C-alpha cells in the first residue's frame, strides 16, 4: 500500500525538490550573474510554504497520532510533523541569515539549492518508518552538508572542516549500514516495526547480535548528535564551515540525528532490555560535562558555541535515557530539541552577522558589540541566556522539564537524580562562558560607533527573540503540542 500523495512528507519533498532543482537551472539559463538574494528568496519561499503545509496538515488533524510504526516506508504522523516544523524553522532562519552572507560569494544558486536538498533529507528522516528509507534520507541530508561545510573553497579551514566532517560521516554511515544489515539478518525485515517486533521475540542466543545492532545505531546517529565520544569532528567542523552552515549543522542536522535515534534506538532498545538506559545516562553526563568544560576556555565564538551544543546534546539525552521510566522524559527532550533548534540557530546566525559585518570571531574582538551592532548583540544575549536556562526564556522550561523528569524517575532508577544534579551543575558552569560573552559585548571596549547591521540577520534576530520570550512567558501551547505528539513507549510496544 502506498502512502497518500497529499501526505506531508510527499508534498514537502515535491515543494523543496522542485525549488531545489529549479534554482540551479535558473542560474544556468539567466545570462547575467544572478544576485544571491533572488535565489535566497526562492528557497525562503519554498521553505515557508512547506512549513505552512506542515502546520496546516497538523491543525486540520490530517496527520495520524504519534505512531512509531507503520507498514509503509513513510508515516504521516504528529511526531514527524513536530520535527519537520523544528527543522524547517531552522532552515528558514539559515536561509534568511545567508542573504547577506552570500552576497559577495560565488555560486549562491548551488548554495541555496543544497540547503533545500538537505532540508528534504532532514524532514524525511523524521517521517521514516523503514530502515532503508531512513538511511536514504540520512544520506540525502548529509551529502549536501559535506559540500556546504567546504563551501569557502579557498579557505583551508573550511576545507579541513569538510574533510573531517566527510570522513566521520562516511564512517558513521558505514556503521549505520552495518547496524541495519545486522537487524535485517536477525529479523528478516527492514521495516522498523517488524524489526522491533522481531527483537522482542528474539531467542536468547541471538540477543548479543541485537544489542550489537543497537550499539551500531547509537554510534552512527551519535555522530550527528555530537555525543561524546563521537563528537571529535564537531568543533573543528563548526569552526571552519561557513557560519550559517554551522547554524544548519548545529540546529538542524543535529536534531535529525535525534529524530532518527528516537525512531530506532529507543524502541529497539526497549524491546531488548533496559540496561541500555544506563549507557545513555553515562553518555549524557559525559557529553554535557565535556562539552561545557571545554567551552569555558575557548577564545573563538563559533568554537565556544560548538562545544556548548555538545553540552546541550547531553541535556537532551537525559530525557531520552529516562524515557521508559518517566512520561515526562521524552516530552522534555522533544521540547528542548525545539528550543535548542531556535536558540542555537539564533546564536549562530548572530555570529554569522558578526562575521559578515566585522569579519571577527575572536572573543576579544567583540568588545563593545552592544554599541556597534545593538540588535545582533541583543539577539545573541537573549539566545545565550535562553541556552543557559534563565527564566523567563524558553530554555528555562525545557530544562525544568528535563531535570524534573530525572527527579520524577528517582523512584524507579537509582541513578536518575545524578542526571539532574549533573544537569544543574553544568547549566551553572555554562553561565560562566555565556556571561563572558555578554560581558565582552556590553561592559568592555571604548565607545564604538554603530555600524550597519545586515537586514536579514536583524529579521532573524527579531523573530527568534520574540519566539524565545513568548515561549518563555507562555510555554503552555508548546508543552501541549509536545504532549500530543509524544509517542507513549508502553503503549507503542508491539
Amino acid at each position, binding site marked *: 500500500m502506498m502512502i497518500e500523495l497529499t501526505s506531508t512528507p510527499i508534498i514537502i519533498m515535491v515543494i523543496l525538490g522542485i525549488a531545489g532543482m529549479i534554482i540551479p537551472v535558473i542560474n544556468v539559463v539567466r545570462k547575467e550573474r544572478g544576485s544571491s538574494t533572488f535565489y535566497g528568496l526562492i528557497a525562503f519561499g519554498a521553505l515557508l510554504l512547506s512549513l505552512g503545509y506542515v502546520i496546516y496538515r497538523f491543525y486540520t488533524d490530517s496527520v495520524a497520532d504519534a505512531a512509531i510504526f507503520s507498514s509503509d516506508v513513510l508515516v504521516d504522523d504528529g511526531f514527524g510533523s513536530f520535527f519537520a516544523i523544528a527543522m524547517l524553522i531552522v532552515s528558514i532562519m539559515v536561509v534568511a541569515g545567508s542573504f547577506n552572507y552570500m552576497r559577495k560569494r560565488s555560486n549562491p544558486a548551488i548554495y541555496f539549492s543544497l540547503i533545500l536538498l538537505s532540508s528534504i533529507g532532514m524532514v524525511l528522516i523524521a517521517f521514516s518508518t523503514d530502515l532503508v528509507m531512513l538511511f536514504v534520507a540520512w544520506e540525502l541530508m548529509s551529502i549536501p552538508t559535506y559540500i556546504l561545510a567546504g563551501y569557502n573553497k579557498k579557505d583551508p579551514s573550511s576545507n579541513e572542516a569538510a574533510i573531517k566532517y566527510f570522513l*566521520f560521516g562516511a564512517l558513521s554511515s558505514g556503521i549505520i549500514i552495518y547496524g541495519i544489515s545486522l537487524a535485517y539478518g536477525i529479523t528478516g525485515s527492514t521495516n522498523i516495526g517488524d524489526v522491533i517486533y522481531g527483537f522482542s521475540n528474539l531467542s536468547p542466543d541471538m540477543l548479543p547480535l541485537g544489542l*550489537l545492532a543497537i*550499539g551500531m545505531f547509537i*554510534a552512527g546517529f551519535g555522530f550527528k548528535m555530537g555525543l561524546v565520544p563521537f563528537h*571529535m569532528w564537531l568543533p573543528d567542523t563548526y569552526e571552519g564551515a561557513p557560519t550559517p552552515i554551522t547554524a544548519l549543522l548545529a540546529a538542524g542536522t543535529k536534531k535529525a540525528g535525534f529524530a532518527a535515534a528516537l525512531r530506532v534506538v529507543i524502541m529497539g532498545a526497549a524491546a531488548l532490555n533496559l540496561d541500555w538506559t544506563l549507557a545513555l545516562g553515562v553518555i549524557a553526563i559525559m557529553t554535557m560535562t565535556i562539552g561545557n568544560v*571545554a567551552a*569555558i576556555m575557548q577564545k573563538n565564538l563559533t568554537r565556544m558555541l560548538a562545544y556548548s551544543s555538545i553540552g546541550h546534546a547531553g541535556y537532551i539525552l537525559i530525557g531520552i535515557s529516562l524515557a521508559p521510566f518517566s512520561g515526562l522524559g521524552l516530552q522534555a527532550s522533544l521540547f528542548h530539541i525545539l528550543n535548542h533548534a531556535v536558540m542555537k540557530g539564533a546564536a549562530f546566525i548572530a555570529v554569522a552577522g558578526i562575521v559578515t559585518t566585522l569579519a571577527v570571531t575572536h572573543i576579544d574582538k567583540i568588545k563593545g558589540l552592544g554599541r556597534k551592532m545593538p540588535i545582533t548583540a541583543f539577539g545573541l544575549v537573549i539566545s545565550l541566556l535562553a541556552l543557559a536556562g534563565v527564566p523567563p526564556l524558553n530554555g528555562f522550561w525545557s530544562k525544568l522539564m528535563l531535570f524534573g523528569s530525572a527527579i520524577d524517575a528517582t523512584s524507579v532508577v537509582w541513578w536518575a537524580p545524578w542526571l539532574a544534579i549533573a544537569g544543574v551543575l553544568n547549566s551553572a558552569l555554562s553561565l560562566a562562558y555565556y556571561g563572558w560573552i555578554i560581558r565582552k559585548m556590553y561592559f568592555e571596549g571604548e565607545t564604538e560607533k554603530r555600524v550597519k547591521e545586515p537586514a536579514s540577520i536583524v529579521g532573524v534576530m527579531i523573530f527568534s527573540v520574540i519566539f524565545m520570550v513568548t515561549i518563555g512567558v507562555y510555554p503552555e501551547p508548546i508543552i501541549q503540542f509536545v504532549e500530543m505528539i509524544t509517542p507513549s513507549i508502553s503503549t507503542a510496544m508491539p
Partner: protein
Amino acid sequence: MAYDFFGIPVSEINVWLIWILPFAAAMIIPAVGKFSKLSTGRVAVAFAAMSAISAATLFPMALEAHEIHHQIMWIDAIGLKAGVLADPLSIIMANVVGWISFLIICYSTGYMKGDKDITRFWFWMMFFIGSMQLIILSDNLLQVFFGWEGVGLASYALISFWYHDKKKDHVGQEGRSALGIMEYFSPTHAGMKAFIMTKVGDVMMLSGMLLLFMFAGTFGFRELVADTAWAVEMSAQGLLVPAFILLFGGAMGKSAQFPLNEWLLEAMTGPTAVSALIHAATMVKAGVFLVARIGPIVFALAAAGILADQFFEIIAWVGAITALLLATQGMVNPEIKKVLAYSTGSQIGYMMMALGVAGLSQQYVDGYTAGFFHLISHAMFKASLFMAAGSLLHAVGSRFMTDMGGLKKQMKKTYAFMWAAGLGLMGAPFITTGFWSKDAIFAAVYESDSSWGLPLFLIAVLTAVITAFYTTRMIGMVFFGKNSKHIEKMESEGHHIHEAPKSMWIPYGILAVLTIGIGLIGLSAEEGIHHLFGEYLEHSFGIHVSHYGGEDSVLPGFLSGLNPVALGASLVAFATGFGLGYIFYIRRWVDPVKFVNSNIFFYSMHKLFLNRWYLNAFVYWGFVVAPLWMARGIWRYFERTAIDTGMNIGFEKAVGWSARVVQGTQTGVSQSYLYIFGAGLLFIVLILLL
C-alpha cells in the same frame, strides 16, 4: 447586550485592557521619545484616559454587584492560571486609581515640562499605573505579586528619578542627625531605601503565598473561597494565622505600616507628581487593597468554624500604632511634602485599623466599608494636596514651609483648593468626604465587640485631633502671616511668585471640588457603598449581613443611622485640632517656638517627634550599620582567607586544568579522532553486552 470579539465578550476584554493599556503605553513611549519628546506626554495622557474609561465602563456592573471572572491557562504543568477578576471591590478601586492617575498624568505634563529625561519619566509612570491595575484586577495571588514587584520597581526608579543627587532634590535638613544617623537623604539613597524596605515585606508576602499554595494548591481568590479544606488542614497545623500574617507583611511594606514605615518619608525625593501617585493611587494603597482582598476570605472561614482573630487583631493594632506614630511626627516637620507623607502613613493606618476591626466584629461589612470609603476619600484629597504642594514648590523653589508664608494673595486658586482638600483631611464636619469616612471608621471601631474596641477608639480620636492640628498648621504656615525672607529675596531679585499654569491647577482643583462635592452627599454615598459591599460580601463570600444599622438613633433626621458617640468624637476632634492650629498658626496669637521651649515636657516631646521617635536611627543602626560591621568582619577573617585563597583559586585552577585536559584530546589530527570514535563504539557495545 453582549458584543463579542473573538468569542470573548467586550466587557471581559475591557477588564484586561485596564491594566494592559498602561503597559502598552510604557512600551510605546520610548519609541515615541526618539522622534518627539513632547509627544510622549500626549501618549501617556491618551493611554491613561483610555485605561480609566475602560474602568468606567464597568461601573454599572459594579453597582449591580455583578462580577466578571475570566481565566486563561498559563502554565498547565503546575496548574497555574492567569485571569482577571472584576468584582465591585476591584472595579471601584480600578476607577479610583484610573481616574486619579489620569489627573496626575495631566498635572505632570505641566509639572515636568522641560525636564530632559521626560521619556524615562513617562515610561515609569505608565509602568507604575499598569502594575497597580494588575494588582487590582488579578484573580490570583501570584499575578498580584507580579504587579506588586512592578510597583516596587517603578517606585524605586521614580523616587530616584533625579539621580544626579543635586542638593535641591534631597529631603531632610542638611546636617541634622539623630543618634548619630544623618537625617538628610539623596534621591538615589531614598530610592534604594524604599526598595529594600518594601522588599522585606515582599519576602514575607511571597513566603505566605507559597505556604498557602502548599496547602491549597491554588493562588486563586475565588478558588480559595470555593473549597476551604486547605484552611482546616492549615489551622490544624497552626499555620493558618502565620501564613496570613506573612501575607499582611507584604501589605505592611507597601503601605508603609509600622515597623516598615520609614521609607515613605524619604520617598519625597521623587518629583511631586510621583509622590502624588505613590500616596494617592498606585503604591501605598496596594497594601490596603490586598488586605481588603484577603480579609473576607479569612473572615468567611469563621463560618467553617475556623477563627483567625489574631490576624485581624494584628492588622488593627499595626494600623492604630502607625496612625498615631506618624501623625505625631507630622505635627513638627518643617517640610511640606514630608508633612503630607506622614499624614498618608497615618491615614493608611486608619484604613488598616478599620479593616482589622471589621474582622473582630459581627458586622464585618461596617469596618470593611469604612476602611474602603476612607481609602477613596483619602485618595482624592491627598492627590489634590500633593499636587497643590507641587505647585507651591514650583513657585517658591523650596521644600520648607518656613520659606513660604503669606502666599494666600499670590496664589489664590491653590489657596482655595488646598483649604478644600485640607478640610477633607481634617474631617471638617458634614461637608467633606473625609469627615464621613473617618466617622464611619470611628463608629466601626466603637461598635466592634472586641475587647480592644475602646483603646483603639481612643487612639483613633487622638490621631484625628492631631491630624486636624497639623493640617491647619500646614495651611497656616504656607498661606498666612507675612512672606518669608526667602520669598522677599526672590521678589527683590525679580522672581515674582505666580499661580501655577492651568494644566497643573485644574487636576487638583477637580479633586478638591470633588472632596467637598461628594462630601455634601457623603452620608448617602457611604450608605450606597455599605449596601453594595453588604451584597458583595454575602454573594461572594457568604458573609451574612444582619442589619443596616441605626433604627434606634437619637440623632435628628439627616444624621439618622450614625453612631452618636462616634459623631460627637469626630466633632470634638475636629474642633480641638483646628482650634489649636488656628491659635498658633493662623491668628498666630501664640508663638509656637516660644511655646515649645517654655516647658521641658513639650520640648522633649517635640524633639522626640522631630527625631522620628528615633525609629529611623534604630533601623539604620540595627539593619545597616551593624550588618556592615559584621560583613566587614566576615570579609576580613573568612572570605579573604577561606574563600578567596582556598576555594576561588582552587576552583579556578581545577576548572582550568580539566578544560586543558579536554582540549588536549582535541588535537586536530583526524587519525586520533577516528581512534576515539572506534574506542567509543567498543565502549558502548561492551556496556550493552555486559
